[in-house]
């Protein structure tokens, strides 16, 4: 037994004080007698000046002493150890369940599970980890405590409770509801969380239920307790699609595809591949993969292809990485061209791949009409639309300030790192006559004239991307050159919403800004179609991206217009696809020996002492009443 608050034992000094108080003569009871004449002999023991007498051996004194002793001991918080799992001190079990993609591998038998009616021959690693956690929970003593942590790309504390039957039932229920993920595992954050769960009254014992397929944080702080790695998984037999891209030749516009297939086993394997373009079977191939090696493939899907799907026709331990998707990454979308008197950009815009062009006269311009990119040539509306904007030869009164008189301009200096000028040589290019503009604070200069005035600006203002061509292409010979459509293409690509063709890590959220007119948001997911609640005008964070596959978020407004946002969720993580168990992952974990982790104590006896003191107090009260 030990005392959690030994300083409180000083209250035992109340015991001699109580004895002294009982030795002092109490106030005498006044009693009327017929006559004092026969009591005169008893006055010999009348109290002296000090009024002290020997400690009276009375029930009252005994009860007072017992009450004082019980109260002092209760304040000192004595603790008695209970027995649980072979130790003498209660423990806090922190169960870190690896929920990364590799735990989907079906190559293991459930270790340490209680006998059930279920088939225990082969199961997924995550299920095996769940059963092992279940066995640990069932072996808890009432004084123990357990915390379940799901370790995925994000770390989540699922449940915490003691080993009492009702709380353990809740833990088991929470454990049964866990699902494996399709991304990695952040064990750095998990170990930090485990360290924060250490408590002085229980010994910390961290169980890492994992196949070891994570990068051990070498700079992790030591844990004040034991860390036990429970290896799960047996096989390394896995092949995976580790890369898949779909793009276009920027000049010719032809779609191009690229894939990489890897073999993580020690044996060579020949795998059949099947390629689909917009859900239409495109081709089949047989690929020979060397042991622990990769093969890269190229293919040409049809020009209108927006989505390709590649499948490995094999059954290995981890099926999640046997299929991948890719979207056409350079699709720009709808472009509105608003020009005062025609535009040199109309022709190249109409020819560029991935562009749906709509030419609008300035008088017909309606800012409510939505586009992915709006091009204003020689015109600036009173208020810019929410889309990305290209301002060509802007007049005064727009987002850029004009200063000076028009003068002939020549491109003197360029920023070669700017993606606008990728493959475009504008130096010394004469651009006709232009009015100088003042560089706004939100923009950076991509090209400038020999007098230092900016000719091409790019930046972001009020949440929209803006590119400014501070010249009229029609006053130069630029539209006749081959670099002009490339310049236009580069500009549109830079302005297009990069989220439109984004690849998202499983479980990661996608943020979507919705217009105020939006009335409906529908998500088409690999799981099916679902309505997504939202607040008009506010951004929506869509986080139901745990399932691998293509996603389409459809935004509808009151006018019936629809905008679409597409993305795919793939498992392109070689660390997860390499499912070979790595039990040595935790070998370097530095832990503080349990002996130095404080003084784990057991069940506190203070509540019982308090109850005992209250019972004694009640008995003393009865004794007092009886004496009266």
């Amino acid at each position: 037994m030990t005392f959690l608050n030994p300083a409180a034992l000083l209250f035992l000094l109340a015991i001699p004080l109580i004895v002294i108080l009982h030795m002092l003569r109490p106030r005498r009871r006044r009693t009327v007698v017929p006559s004092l004449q026969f009591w005169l002999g008893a006055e010999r023991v009348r109290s002296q000046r000090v009024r002290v007498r020997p400690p009276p051996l009375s029930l009252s004194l005994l009860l007072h002493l017992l009450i004082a002793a019980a109260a002092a001991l209760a304040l000192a918080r004595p603790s008695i150890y209970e027995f649980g799992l072979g130790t003498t001190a209660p423990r806090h079990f922190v169960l870190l369940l690896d929920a990364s993609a590799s735990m989907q591998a079906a190559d293991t038998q459930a270790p340490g599970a209680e006998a059930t009616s279920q088939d225990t021959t082969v199961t997924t690693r995550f299920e095996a980890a769940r059963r092992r956690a279940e066995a640990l929970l069932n072996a808890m003593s009432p004084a123990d405590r357990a915390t379940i942590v799901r370790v995925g790309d994000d770390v989540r504390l699922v449940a915490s409770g003691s080993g009492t039957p009702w709380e353990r039932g809740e833990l088991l229920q929470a454990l049964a509801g866990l699902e494996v993920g399709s991304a990695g595992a952040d064990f750095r954050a998990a170990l930090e969380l485990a360290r924060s769960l250490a408590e002085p009254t229980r010994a910390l014992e961290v169980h890492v239920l994992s196949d070891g397929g994570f990068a051990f944080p070498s700079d992790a702080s030591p844990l004040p307790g034991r860390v036990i790695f429970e290896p799960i998984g047996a096989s390394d037999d896995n092949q995976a699609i580790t890369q898949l891209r779909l793009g276009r030749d920027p000049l010719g516009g032809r779609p191009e595809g690229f894939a990489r297939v890897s073999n993580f086993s020690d044996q060579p394997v020949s795998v059949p591949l099947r390629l689909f373009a917009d859900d239409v079977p495109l081709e089949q191939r047989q690929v020979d993969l060397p042991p622990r090696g990769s093969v890269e493939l190229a293919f040409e899907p049809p020009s209108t292809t927006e989505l390709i799907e590649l499948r490995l026709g094999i059954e290995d331990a981890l099926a999640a990485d046997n299929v991948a998707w890719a979207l056409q990454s350079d699709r720009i979308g709808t472009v509105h061209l608003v020009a005062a008197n025609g535009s040199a950009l109309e022709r190249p815009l109409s020819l560029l791949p991935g562009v749906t062009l709509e030419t609008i006269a300035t008088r017909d311009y309606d800012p409510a009409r939505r586009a992915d990119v709006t091009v204003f040539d020689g015109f600036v509306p009173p208020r810019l639309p929410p889309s990305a904007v290209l301002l060509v030869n802007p007049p005064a009164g727009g987002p850029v300030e004009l200063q000076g008189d028009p003068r002939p301009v020549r491109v003197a200096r360029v920023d070669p790192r700017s993606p606008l000028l990728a493959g475009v040589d504008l130096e010394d290019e004469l651009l006709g006559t232009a009015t100088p503009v003042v560089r706004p604070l939100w923009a950076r200069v991509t090209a400038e004239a020999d007098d230092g005035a900016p000719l091409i600006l790019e930046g972001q203002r009020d949440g929209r991307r803006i590119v400014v061509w501070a010249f009229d292409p029609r006053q130069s010979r630029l539209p006749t050159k081959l670099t002009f459509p490339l310049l236009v293409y580069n500009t549109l690509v830079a302005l297009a919403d990069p989220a439109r063709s984004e690849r998202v890590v499983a479980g990661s959220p996608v943020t979507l800004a919705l217009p105020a007119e939006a009335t409906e948001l529908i998500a088409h997911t690999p799981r099916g179609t679902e309505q997504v609640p939202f607040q008009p005008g506010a951004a929506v964070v869509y986080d139901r991206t745990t399932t691998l596959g293509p996603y389409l978020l459809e935004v509808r407004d009151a006018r019936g217009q629809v905008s679409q946002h597409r993305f795919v969720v793939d498992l392109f993580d070689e660390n997860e696809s390499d499912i070979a168990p790595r039990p040595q992952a935790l070998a370097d974990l530095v832990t503080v020996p349990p002996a130095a982790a404080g003084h784990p104590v057991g069940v506190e006896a203070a509540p019982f002492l308090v109850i005992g003191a209250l019972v004694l107090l009640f008995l003393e009260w009865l004794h007092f009443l009886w004496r009266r």
Partner: protein
Amino acid sequence: MRLLDEEFLRKLDRLVLACTRAAGGGLIGEHASRRRGTSLEFADYRSYVPGDDFRRIDWSIYARLEALFLRLTEAKEDIHLHLLVDYSRSMHWGQPSKLDVARRIAAALGYVALAHADRVSAAAFASEVAFHLPTVRGRSQIMALLRFLEAAPVGGRTHLERAMHQYGERAARGGVAVVISDLLCVDGYEAGLRYLLGRGHEVLLVHVLADEEIEPRYDGDLLLEDAESGETLEVSLTPAALGLYRARVAEWRDGVRSYCQQRGIDCWQILTSWPLEDVVLKRLQQRAMLR
């Protein structure tokens, strides 16, 4: 408080007050009288009991039978019963209180006397006679006696000699003087009783005490307060202290008995827990006060 219940009154009706000395009433009554110089009628014999007057022993019977008998003579005179009841504060103590018992004894004796045409006078005393009932006679005065006993005020300290002197100066000589008291007197009990004997009374002392005065149930540290004087005394009641008290009380009671015996005073020491019928019907009858 109802001093006497109906059933007890019926039993009292069968009793007659007896007097072993000169009745002293001076009037014609129902009782045999014994006077000097007058013819005496021999009434009866009875066995000698300790405390009887040796002069009344019939020695001729003793010579023949070697047994002691008293010769009773009769004279047809009434008895004057003097009821002297202690109404001091010390009597108003105990459960039941000594005063209640004293009143009931006085009521019983007075009832018997009045029912048989004897005369009764009563006095309630403490430091002096605080309340006096003039001599009454006959059944019609029973209620007057009872009302007197119930209405007499309680209070004061007991000065027995002074009170007896005060009563004796007013009362007729002779008769039976019944002193009902706890004898917790400032001036002692001897002089007062002696005075009554000197007045020619046949004295009966009913010494009333409460059971708690014989066996007190106190313990611990107490502040005792005298019921009459108000004086206080701090005591720590150890078993030894209680034993000393009990010894003192026993010695005092023995002293009272001895004194009364020596002077021919009938003395009966009564505890308040005793049934009243035992006291009045049996024990006093044994003392030849009632027959």
